[in-house]
């Protein structure tokens, strides 16, 4: 089999992994600390790393996976030399920022990890490659191998795959929850130790300097958004993860336990989960603030921040000339950059709407929640106007069938029935009415 065919097969096997970031490693020139996208594929996702499998041979039979052992497809593997050569040549031409290496399980988890370590070792120490490396550990591999992998890679990740233990037992019978969480804990501890050692001795070996990440599949199992968000919050808190990635389930293989093959991936739901995730990581929201036991689904029509805001109208309006940074961050339309700019700029003069606009604050949503020097709190809007302005136009560009992919959303709030032929304007009006009345 020639290199072209191998690359095609092994890319096809790896492409459902969502993570393709390269941030966190600080080696000036060799990596960009903030991450750097080298291209964007036709699905709009960024291509930063050469994302391939070492092999797509697999002894596991996870129901949702293209590489499952019962799937009849062509199998192949890179030799470590081939992989290293490809990475170096791509990196040299500035096609990529580094390598994302995952793998099917060949013979045993330990054997596969040894192969991966060998390939990475070759790349780092024979070819002197110091670009970014993101490596996936194999569930069930021994701790010593995880440690060696962490010393070679910038970021190590263990996929949690499914949000709950029941789903995991049902759909990934070979993966045990402990086999996923144990290496996660190990990586978290080892990275912490390595940071401490480096504070004492600068040349101490770095263990996964860019931290660890994980991924879970959305929509293949009946777990609710609340469960997912809670799990993510726990992972951020307990294992100091840098990112949790959510991947809308894409039917790759047929199975009676899974959604049908013509099932549309729940892209809107995935989008809302990412928004909620960002609120937790960068805006100081807690999982309990975004969702709760009796409201377990994210609102498809409003982004989570707007949803929180219209449900907590008593916290607004916020005075941009006086409010604390954390309070500003809670205003829909004001993000970390705008909030920091406001805090700097207001030391040198009072801010009105025109100033905010020139500073790059998006007033489309923020205007309903702020008070500025020429924007008194008397300028309140009624709920209908507010909600109408906040309804996310993206909802309709995703297609109305996306709404039905929110478990329980339509029954909970009597939102307009999905799938009916209707004009976008009509759908918005109806949404506004029922959201405003539910507030």
């Amino acid at each position, binding site marked *: 089999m020639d*290199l*072209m065919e191998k*690359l*095609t097969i092994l*890319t*096809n096997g*790896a*492409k*459902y992994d969502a993570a393709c970031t390269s941030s966190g490693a600080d080696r*000036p*020139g*060799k990596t*960009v600390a903030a991450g*750097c*996208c*080298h*291209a*964007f*594929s*036709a*699905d*709009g*996702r*960024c*291509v*930063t790393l*050469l*994302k391939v499998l070492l092999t797509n041979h697999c002894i596991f039979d996870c129901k949702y996976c293209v590489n499952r052992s019962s799937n009849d497809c062509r199998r192949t593997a890179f030799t470590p030399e081939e992989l290293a050569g*490809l990475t170096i*040549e*791509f990196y*040299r*031409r*500035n*096609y990529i*920022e580094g390598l994302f290496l995952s793998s099917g399980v060949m013979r045993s988890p330990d054997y596969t990890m040894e192969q991966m370590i060998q390939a990475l070792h070759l790349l780092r120490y024979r070819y002197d490659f110091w670009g970014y490396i993101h490596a996936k550990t194999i569930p069930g591999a021994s701790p010593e191998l995880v440690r060696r992998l962490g010393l070679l890679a910038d970021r190590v990740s263990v996929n949690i795959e499914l949000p709950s233990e029941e789903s995991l037992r049902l759909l990934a019978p070979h993966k045990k929850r402990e086999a996923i969480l144990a290496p996660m804990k190990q990586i978290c501890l080892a990275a912490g130790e390595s940071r401490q050692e480096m504070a004492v001795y600068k040349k101490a070996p770095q263990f996964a300097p860019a931290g660890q990440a994980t991924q879970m599949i959305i929509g293949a199992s009946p777990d609710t958004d609340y469960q997912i968000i809670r799990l993510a919050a726990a992972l951020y808190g307990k294992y100091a993860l840098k990112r949790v990635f959510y991947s*809308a389930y*894409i039917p790759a293989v047929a199975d009676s336990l899974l959604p049908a093959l013509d099932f*549309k*991936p729940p*892209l809107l739901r995935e989008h809302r989960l990412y928004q909620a995730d960002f609120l937790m990581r960068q805006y100081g929201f807690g999982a309990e603030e975004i969702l709760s036991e009796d409201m377990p689904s994210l609102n498809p029509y409003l982004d989570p921040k707007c949803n929180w805001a219209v449900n907590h109208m008593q916290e607004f309006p916020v005075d941009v000339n006086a409010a604390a940074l954390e309070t500003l961050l809670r205003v829909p339309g004001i993000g970390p950059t705008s909030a920091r*700019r406001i805090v*700097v*700029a207001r*030391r*040198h*003069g009072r*801010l*009105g709407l*025109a*100033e*905010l606009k*020139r*500073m*790059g604050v998006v007033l489309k949503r923020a205007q309903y929640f702020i008070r500025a020097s020429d924007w008194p709190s008397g300028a309140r809007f009624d709920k209908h106007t507010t909600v109408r302005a906040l309804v996310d136009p993206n909802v309709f560009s995703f297609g109305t069938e996306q709404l039905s992919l929110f478990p329980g959303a339509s029954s909970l709030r009597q939102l307009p029935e999905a799938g009916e032929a209707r004009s976008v304007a009509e759908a918005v009006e109806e949404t506004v009415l029922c959201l405003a009345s539910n507030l």
Partner: protein
Amino acid sequence: MPGFKPLALPANVVYTYDGSFEGFLCCVFESVYSGELPLEILREEDAQPTLIQSRSVATDPVRAERVRASIRSKISERALELVTTAFCSCLAQKELRMLEFLLRGYREGAKLCFMMGDDVTATLLRAEKHLLGEAHLLKGFVRFADVGGALVATISPKNYALPFIARHFVLRYRQERFMIFDKTNGAALVYQDCKAEILRVERVELPEISESEAQYQALWKRFYDTVSIESRENPRCRMTHMPKRYWENMSEVCGLLRPKAE
């Protein structure tokens, strides 16, 4: 500007200068010492004969140095950085906007840089953001081709971004020889024998690419096409993140551009 007597008043005159940053600093000198705010500041090659009085400002290194020092001491280090960056941007009438900023800065001091809601500052900050944003994208979107052992790339950015990406690529390809040719601004970053410089180059003739180079380009194209998931296809999203004006220099997508009408 309430409470401040402006340094220069609007005057019916157009300045022309040689296009260098020093030349621009001399225009600032001229404006402050004659007390006139020109209608426009143009590069000599862009100047059209008009009825408006025009004055050619000669570049004098001593004066330029005085202005540079005055920006540092009377406004701030950040103001000098902002003006230097804005000078490389593609802001319309950038010289005049920068002059307005400096004249205000001499009166108001260091705080002007923090008045991000102010029109003169906001304009320059926007230009700076545009340039730095483009430079960041280019760090990813530059595509090198191996030509006889040296790496060659072409870019066509809107801003003069070459000085802002030079450090990144020099650090990354320390052991290589490479050239990045900026088609829009007629300049090239050349790095060889551990020395980098930016040269004025109008055009570059590239030799035919070799067989092994063609193979790596094909492998990259195949990887790029394969890694996309069909059921998530979203061309709009791709264009937002990777505007089409970059595509002509990127081997994996240049084939998707409609061929230009002859």
